[in-house]
């Protein structure tokens, strides 16, 4: 007989209780895995935008917490081009619109100049890209086209104005896939922001992190009132990313506490019920540390089962969410391995936390006292 056989038999002895504990734990782990997966996917998707386009720096108005509220004069582009170390740049205006008939809110709309470097990483699947002289023309992301059931040649209503779909594209970023691109001038006119931009994307001459940071500092020194942030730092500082990550961690913390209390309760009951048995094991010569290992082993097995079931539930939940029209533009149907890793580590840690006190209590029982419980 293996030691693990003993652990398994003890858990299966109260099958329903064990199953309920595992389910309780699994729900917590599922929440952790899914929320972290979504938050990290969110961040990765943002990063993918800049990586695919080779953007090194983002220039926005200094002091704004949300990129969408930033506004800079279009004319700043010429001054930025003069800064030593700037190789290329592109201005963009970004906003959000809704398509209520499709139950889509906060769809990202980008105003880009035709031929802009921002089109890098954009793969046109159908139709064509934006061209000089295009008026109310729109390029739809693949997911948005799917949600709106639009194809090339159809017309769509954007913030009360009729646009013609000239192309459908795919991007490495979910955000872009769930949004649309229109000519910069059209978006500026529609939003009453002629001459305004949200910010500039900059490609540097020297692309290592130190040089990019130095370029950022140079831009900020030469052009007061702007913030020039390396693309990766910019994404990490983004208010939505930070909010999503904070929510994910806060929920994880709650799940941690609830899960640990569940394991604690189960293991306490289990140890209490088996006090006499523990006395027998001690009488037979079992050392305290073997009793400790038995009880902690049972708690760990609960944690392991909770982690497996929780990961499966979290994965299924994210898959379902990714299929819903409102979320599919933002939620990838997959979970990064790191999120699964956090779920597993959390399950192990909280099962050990929940099992530790009962295990210590069991292991420190005086054999004669424990035997009296039979």
């Amino acid at each position: 007989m293996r030691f693990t056989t003993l652990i398994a038999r003890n858990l299966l002895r109260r099958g329903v209780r064990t199953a309920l504990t595992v389910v309780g734990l699994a729900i917590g782990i599922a929440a952790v895995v899914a929320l972290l997966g979504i938050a990290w996917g969110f961040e990765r998707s943002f990063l993918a935008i800049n990586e695919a386009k080779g953007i090194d720096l983002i220039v926005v108005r200094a002091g704004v917490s949300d990129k969408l509220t930033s506004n800079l004069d279009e004319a700043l582009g010429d001054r930025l081009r003069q800064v030593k170390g700037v190789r290329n740049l592109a201005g963009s205006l970004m906003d959000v619109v809704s398509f209520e008939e499709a139950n889509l809110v906060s769809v990202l709309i980008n105003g880009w100049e035709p031929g802009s470097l921002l089109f890098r990483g954009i793969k046109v699947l159908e139709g064509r890209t934006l061209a000089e002289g295009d008026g109310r023309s729109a390029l739809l992301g693949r997911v948005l086209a799917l949600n709106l059931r639009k194809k090339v040649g159809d017309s769509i209503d954007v913030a009360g104005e009729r646009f013609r779909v000239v192309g459908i594209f795919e991007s490495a970023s979910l955000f872009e896939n769930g949004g649309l691109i229109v000519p910069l001038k059209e978006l500026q006119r529609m939003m009453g922001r002629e001459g305004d931009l949200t910010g500039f994307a900059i490609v540097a001459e020297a692309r290592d992190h130190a040089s990019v940071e130095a370029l950022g500092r140079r831009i900020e020194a030469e052009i007061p009132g702007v913030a020039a942030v390396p693309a990766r730092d910019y994404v990490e500082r983004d208010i939505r990313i930070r909010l999503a990550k904070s929510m994910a961690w806060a929920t994880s913390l709650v799940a941690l506490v609830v899960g640990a209390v569940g394991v604690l309760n189960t293991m306490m009951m289990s140890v209490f019920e088996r006090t006499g048995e523990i006395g027998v094991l001690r009488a037979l010569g079992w050392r305290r540390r073997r009793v400790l290992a038995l009880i902690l082993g049972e708690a760990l097995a609960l944690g392991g089962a909770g982690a497996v079931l929780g990961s499966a539930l979290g994965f299924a939940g994210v898959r379902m969410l990714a299929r819903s029209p409102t979320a599919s533009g933002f939620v990838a149907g997959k979970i990064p391995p790191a999120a699964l890793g956090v779920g597993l580590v959390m399950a192990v840690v909280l099962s050990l936390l929940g099992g530790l006190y009962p295990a210590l209590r069991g292991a420190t029982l005086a054999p004669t006292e424990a035997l009296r419980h039979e």
Partner: protein
Amino acid sequence: MSDAGPLLKAEGLTRIYPDGAVRALRGVSLAVAAGESVAVTGPSGCGKSTLLHLLGGLDRPTSGEVYFEGVPLGALDLDAFRARRIGFVFQSFHLLPTLSALENVQVPMFEGPWPRGERVARAVRLLDEVALAHRRDHIPSRLSVGERQRVAIARALANEPALLLADEPTGNLDSVAQAEVLELLGRLRRERSLTLVLVTHSPEVAAAADRVIKIRDGRIVDG
């Protein structure tokens, strides 16, 4: 240890429980030679089980000392002592309910020197010795009370102990099963040169021992 010395010796054992109200033993001294069988008898609550627990290193005396092969138990690793030198048999068998007879016999072997493969083979041999090889895969609830006690005896022998301590080993058995268990204990003792100390209420069981020690109110009154 000298060859002539007793296997087990107790000197002036007292046991007062922490609240101070119960003086379970009041200066008990005894010696048990290797290979001897000793029955401890007396009315309920006289301190028989307490004495057995002190002799087996399950509990420590308030004063006095127990010596095993001349070495005071206070100087020993009591877990290892219980695991390797002592076999316990209880009135209520105390088998683990979810384990088969074969698995129950292996439980003490986790603290023994046996690799896993050998544990199984040893458990099979021990069950064969108690004539239960054919019931090896049954869990305790599928065994008769007599069979359960035989499994418990096989378990007590798992690590080749020198001393078997039995607390009312026939207390829960009918007369047929009692006779079987007594016969088994006698045979095992002879074949394995075991020393046996058992606590009993039963005159028949006591009569089968080499020597009887009577206890009353925590003191030896005879033997």
